[in-house]
């Protein structure tokens, strides 16, 4: 799976209230949530984000509440992947569950700058800046977890496995 897009840079400890404020948690519609993604932190995000763009953040991305509305808002906004130094525990799980590719790389997080044109290979974990020499290798993701992302999330993965006669 190859993701191509521009980098949107974020700092450390980006919490789920910043990703999607609680005032919008009275809906579950993903497109509606996407329209308010990062509304208080980066009001230019929801309108400016393009399909495939990549978020690049610091430590503990997605900390705070368990709201799956947060990874969904990011995914439904068109974001192709999130790269961070590290992720909060619940966000990490939920990202895989809903099929949002995420990778951990300290170097990429430090050296990528806002607007860098990036190419990310989810299978090899390689993150590349397309016009320069920046190249990073993210921490490897186990095959079965990559399969969940490639299937489009846990539900699709389980259904696919059931369709193939495997026990979910």
């Amino acid at each position, binding site marked *: 799976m190859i993701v191509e897009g521009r980098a949107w840079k974020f700092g450390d400890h980006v919490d789920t209230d910043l990703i999607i404020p609680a005032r919008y948690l009275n809906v579950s519609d993903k497109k509606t949530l996407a329209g308010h993604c990062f509304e208080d932190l980066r009001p230019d995000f929801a309108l400016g984000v393009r399909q495939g763009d990549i978020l690049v953040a610091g430590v503990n991305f997605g900390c705070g509440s368990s709201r799956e509305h947060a990874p969904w808002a990011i995914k439904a906004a068109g974001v192709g992947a999130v790269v961070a130094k590290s992720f909060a525990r619940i966000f990490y799980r939920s990202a895989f569950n809903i099929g949002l590719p995420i990778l951990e790389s300290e170097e990429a997080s430090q050296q990528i700058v806002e607007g860098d044109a990036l190419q990310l290979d989810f299978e090899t974990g390689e993150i590349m800046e397309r016009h320069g020499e920046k190249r990073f290798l993210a921490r490897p993701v186990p095959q079965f977890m990559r399969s969940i992302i490639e299937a489009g*999330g846990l*539900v699709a993965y389980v259904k696919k496995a059931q369709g193939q006669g495997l026990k979910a």
Partner: protein
Amino acid sequence: MPMTITEKILAEHADVDSVNPGDLIQVDVDLALANDITAPMAIEVFEDLGTEDVFDREKIAMIQDHFVPNKDIQSAEQVKIMRTFVLEHGIRHFFELGETGIEHVILPERGLISPGDLVIGADSHTCTYGAMGAFSTGVGSTDLGVIMATGKTWLKVPGSIRVVFEGKLPRWVGGKDLILHTLGILGVSGAVYQSLEFAGEGIAQLSMAHRFTMANMAVEAGAKNGIFEPDDITRRYVEGRCERPGSFYRSDPDASYERVIPIQLDSLEPQVAFPHSPDNVRPLSAVKPIRLDQVFLGSCTNGRLDDLREAASVIKGQKVAKGTRFIVIPGSPAIYRKAMKEGILETFMEAGAVIGPPCCGPCLGGHMGILASGEKALSTSNRNFKGRMGHSESEVYLANPSVAAASAVLGRIGSPAEI
């Protein structure tokens, strides 16, 4: 093999003799819960899976607490989705208005959690039940939807950090201050993927309310769970209350910990977390006068009877400062009624507070008591992220219930000793 209490509960639920930190295990879930924000998405996942029945209608709780009584059409639609699902599948633990309260307050109160349980909730503060010596943690809605179908989930066994409290609790210092001080040491990512185990003679006399407060905020350090070894105080709390007797686990004396943090209580002051992070803590004496527009007493962190009693003892006979709003929200109908009978609500109203119905209230900035731009609030809740209680240019300070009551009277952050 020596194990921690967390490892013992996980091993038991994975049906293995022992587990090690880092092990990936599949576990049976004793109780799965979701609320009016997370349940609709979990229900969507459950229905998408195509499973006909839930794994056990006795082991699922659906709690309406975040936006109730419903604040608008959308939140009413969310609860309607829950209610329809509950009826269709015969889910036993669903509470209508009048019975409902904050999930992490009413589930223990109604005896639905027992020591030694494994509880998974689509809410990050599910870690609260560690106060009873249960393993409990938060997940997203997809994980919960799958659990509703299968009764199982996978977990990575966390390493443990043991926080040992020594000495005696000074006056006006309680569970909230102990956990805020711990957060100041650990930082908001200091325990990511770890278990926080609270121990030591300093907390041996802590009431369950204070323990719930501490376990509740373990997630604020990124922890997977927070836990206490159950003791006689736990036993008194569960006797005659819990549906199941439960198992009282203790950590082995030679269990291994990734880190041990000793904390001396004798000189500890009430703590205040400054904007915009729960780990940005200072002792109360180091806080310069900060004028407050609003004070909130309540939430899954500090909405229990002991919390209300403490705050009432400070505010009794006093008046809320002009220009400051004081919002009090008891965590459950049972707490509300006891507070009414004890005259606590009268005390608050006499002082000029407004009392809300049991719910999450303004804690997450969605309902009842939202902050305008530039406003400052002191809250007994658990998070003070930017914009948490309203406008992104508002500020939230976190503190214990007695500091909250004193601050409401003073109109600025201050100490109960000043009243």
